[in-house]
């Protein structure tokens, strides 16, 4: 087990309220595995990523839980240890590539600097490595691109550079928060292919945060569906997408337009996200659920195997079976 999150709850304090952004979240990632966390805005998927990276805002409090990375609890590390871990073991890629790049430094120099730091190479060797790593992320004419500044590159190129920066160490775990959301579909497709390729080649595990089920289907071995700060369903991607067990997952899939049958009206989810200042007693999705039954509003369901006879991987927190 590379990363194991157990029972993680995170609370934000704003000026007047407390908002529980994560509620008893448990999730694990194996070495080399690609796990998707999918959810809409307010689901807590980004908060999960930021907790692992130790990048939560100051007004966030970890109320319970552990995040074990190869047996060490990340939540107990001090600032320095965390930083070392982030640079070396855990890489990150965010939605907006410009936030990760130095705006006035040539791409090749930025890469070389990181590579030199991690592999104890001379400037020159590191620069040669940098050009090589640009080639690895399928940048054509890497020598020319290495001499450019980030603003001279397109969004897709920038994201490739960021990925190559994040992979420089190379890390054991790459956390990607909406890495392709700002990109065009054709480029998104290529970046996803690239991530998969790098993961297989280097044995890097990837945690992919996204709102897009399509991206999950494309890339991930396993998926966790989050809603309002809770994981409501988890399992093999194909299994979850083909036989979704939770009404929310079903609704999410139903809300996607169908290319084969455009006449079919989309299944929208009625209502709005619940007020996270006070969680309801029962199931978090009950208020918007189409198949709600009496216990849903009273007792909170736990993640349970959908078909215990067929293994424990596909789990769902729902009373309706």
């Amino acid at each position, binding site marked *: 087990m590379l990363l194991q999150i157990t029972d993680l709850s995170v609370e934000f304090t704003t000026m007047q309220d407390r908002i529980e952004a994560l509620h008893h979240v448990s999730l694990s990632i194996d070495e080399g595995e690609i796990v998707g966390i999918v959810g*809409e*805005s307010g689901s807590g998927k980004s908060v999960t990523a930021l907790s692992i990276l130790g990048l939560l805002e100051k007004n966030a409090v970890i109320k319970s839980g552990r995040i074990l990375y190869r047996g060490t609890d990340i939540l107990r590390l001090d600032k320095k240890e965390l930083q070392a871990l982030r640079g070396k073991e855990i890489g990150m890629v965010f939605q907006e590539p410009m936030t990760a790049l130095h705006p006035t430094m040539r791409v090749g120099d930025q890469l070389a600097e990181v590579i030199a730091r991690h592999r104890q190479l001379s400037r020159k060797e590191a620069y040669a490595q940098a050009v090589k790593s640009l080639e690895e992320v399928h940048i054509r004419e890497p020598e020319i691109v290495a001499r450019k500044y980030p603003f001279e590159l397109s*969004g897709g190129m920038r994201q490739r550079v960021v990925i190559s920066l994040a992979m420089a160490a190379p890390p054991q775990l790459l956390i990607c928060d909406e890495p392709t959301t700002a990109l*065009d*579909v*054709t480029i*998104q*497709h290529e970046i996803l292919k690239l991530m998969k390729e790098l993961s297989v080649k280097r044995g890097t595990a990837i945690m992919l945060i996204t*709102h*897009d*089920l*399509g*991206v*999950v*289907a*494309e890339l991930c071995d396993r998926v966790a569906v989050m809603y309002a700060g809770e994981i409501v369903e988890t399992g093999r991607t194909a299994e979850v*997408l*083909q036989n*979704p067990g939770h*009404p929310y997952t*079903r*609704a*999410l*899939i*139903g*809300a*996607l*337009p*169908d*290319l*084969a*049958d*455009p006449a*079919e*009206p*989309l*299944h*929208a*989810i*009625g209502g*709005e*996200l619940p007020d996270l200042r006070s969680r309801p007693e029962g199931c978090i999705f009950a208020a918007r659920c*189409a198949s709600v039954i009496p216990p849903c509003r009273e007792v909170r369901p736990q993640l349970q195997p959908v078909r215990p006879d067929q293994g424990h991987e596909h789990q769902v927190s729902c009373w309706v079976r």
Partner: protein
Amino acid sequence: MKPLIELKGVHKYYGKGKQRIAAVRDVTFQIEAGETFGLIGESGSGKSTLGKMLIGLEPPSEGEVRYAEKALWKGQSFHRPRPGEIQIVFQDPQSSLDPRMRVKEIILEPLRALPRLERLEKGGEERLHALIRRVGLKEEHLSRYPHEFSGGQRQRIAIARALITDPAFVILDEPTSALDVSVQAQVLNLLKELKQERNLTYLFISHNMSVIRYMCERMAVMCKGEVVETGTADEIFRTPSHPYTQTLLASLPSIFRDKRVEANV
């Protein structure tokens, strides 16, 4: 039948001399009354620029833009057909509603450009209430401010604002791109229903193939300022002829390509 919208040899350049960039190159297509016409393209393809030409925000550099057989642009000046005849819904409901106005003022704003009598008639309390309910909001929301609403609700307000003048033609510029999928589904369904009820003609601009597929009867594919393919959505999705369209379709995540109806809710 004469088309409602006609674009003929439309160009748009920015900059001068060597710096000149063509944002739109030689675009020609027509939109029939009563249809939803999709315009798909990636960022920088010029699709939004075309939308702006139709609504009067950007003059074309060359070519003709006609609405109901009348030229919309004479040189740099825009000739509005009838105030409120053409309306637009923008992508970002965060910025398209004035944060300092109440919902009621926002929705009624387009009426200010109308003659007094028509303004009074269309701005009547009853009509306003019916409209706000129709787009899925409540009367009590009228006295609130935009920041009190979610993205989907704000987009509903923007739709109500576009419909208050009883337009014939509505430009939808990426109306659901900023929304979550479940909310996107609500808004798309609403737009489809409203079109039926009010006999609207839509220009639906989007970068999202599956959304275009769901909404449109006919469509044009744009790439780097040019229209590379025009046709019915059925044709284009079944047998894309231009390589760019083929790439676009191939880039769609597989979940869209073989999504089964078994995901019934």
